[in-house]
């Protein structure tokens, strides 16, 4: 699988789909923030702009963040070739003031979200 980092001059990395993206990219010299390393703390969040990942183990993101393309690199594995934006410059919509911009019930984290009304 090939990972392209669009905000690092389009740098590409060949990665093993059985390993976490964080481990694969850091082993090849990518400088990435990280914290808990079990998918719970959001420090390593990046934005997926093309392709698919499996990040079922993450528990940090709410559904709005997932819909905005965020992935938790310490537990996410690539399912296809992917393109990422990394680092805090990709975090433009990751953080939200909840008093200014509340979540709708379907935008909560998966364990408490209710299905979107149509």
């Amino acid at each position: 699988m090939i990972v392209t980092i669009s905000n690092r001059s389009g740098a590409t990395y060949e990665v093993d789909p059985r390993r976490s993206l964080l481990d694969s990219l850091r082993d090849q010299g990518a400088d990435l923030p990280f914290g808990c390393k079990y998918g719970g703390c959001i420090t390593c969040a990046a934005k997926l702009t093309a392709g698919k990942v499996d990040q079922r183990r993450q528990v940090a993101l709410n559904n709005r963040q997932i819909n905005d393309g965020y992935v938790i690199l310490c537990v996410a594995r690539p399912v296809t070739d992917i393109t990422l934006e990394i680092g805090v410059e990709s975090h433009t919509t990751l953080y939200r003031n909840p008093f200014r911009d509340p979540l709708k019930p379907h935008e909560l984290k998966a364990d408490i979200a209710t299905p979107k009304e149509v």
Partner: protein
Amino acid sequence: MECCGPGYATPAEAIKAPREKLLYTIAIYTGTGIQKPDYLATVDVDPDSPTYSQVIHRLEMPGIGDELHHMGWNACSSCFDDGSMSRKYLILPGVRSNNLHIVDTAIDPRAPRLHKVVEGAEIKSKTNLSGPHTVHCLGSEIIISMLGDAKGEAPGGYLHLNKDFEIQGRWENSMGDIKFGYDFWYQPRHNVMVSSEWAAPNTFMPGFDLEEVGHLKYGRELHFWDFEKKVPIETMYLGEDGLLPLEVKFHHDPDSTHGFCGAALSSNVIHWWKDDAGKWQWEKIIDVENEPHPDWPIPVPGVMSAILISMDDKYLYLNNWLHGDMRQYDISDPHNPVLTGQVWMGGLLGKAPEINGVKMAGGPQMFQLSLDGKRLYVTTSLFSTWDNQFYPEIREQGGVMVMMDCDPVNGGMTMNPDFIVDFGKEPNGPSRCHEARYPGGDCTSDIWL
């Protein structure tokens, strides 16, 4: 009484200690986009020194991404009678990495050095705990509240270290029905410990979703423990008055049963005490109203993330991190606090956007009072992800430390015009300062047996 251990014989002796000349605060790069380790900053607080109000030393942690937060001493006045102990080591937990950094402050107090790291992986494998928060010493032993299990789920428990910082296992014999952990304080003469509730690390670490409060993912209870048996025996359900009960403090007077908790989201102070019948009681004594914001659908709470009791037990200090004010209350009658001081700095209400020439990002957050009660040092960053939600400009501007002059006799406080430490100007880029401690012990560390 002259003795040979650390600290002071009584709170009254502590008040008479020499004025602090150095102060330690942690500063973080975690969550800022700067790929550098968090560090312990030494700040010169001696007004006669040429480097007054400056960072004079930085001790970097060995790794990146710890998120240093609170810290604690290896020994305090609870070891006053123990000549084999000294207040030498500061323990700096990393909330995200779970590493405990043991820092030697005695060899050169101006330039502390790393003594030892207790690895987060070892803590997880031996105790199934993560998310270290409050550090207290118990005589020569150390306990640390851990907010989650190894996978970041609540309620976590308490890590027990011996005086050589070796993992002894879990401190508590049972967590009972406790749903969450956070802060704790104990009063040994009454065989009681009180603990409070934030949330599971997996809930609070990614940031604050207000909606999760209604889904009971954040705490609203206080727990009273049989301290010797190490089991919780009574729970106080605070309900809407006590959403996110964070910091808990007993009076410093070891005979007192009065204590206080700041409920961050409700922005209330809860007071507890043991009544004449020997039963624990609680009441709400301070209620900070939410403030409407012209453009936002939900009124803004104060977010009272910390409280502090002066060493003479006369004043309670609290912050409203989102509103932007620090307050001082006279709690001589703990049932009837009287507001005696209020100072604005930063905040979302725009009342004091600049202090001493420095543009503020964030609001008053952690604070430490001098032992004599005259100087309150205040910092602006809460927690990297929460900072990023409420004060995104802190990423470019960094945190700030200011000092307020307090009148311990008549009450009142004012912003000191000569002191400001701008962590936006740090050599590696803007960092964020949080909790502060003095080498000689402070108003949030020492407990008397």
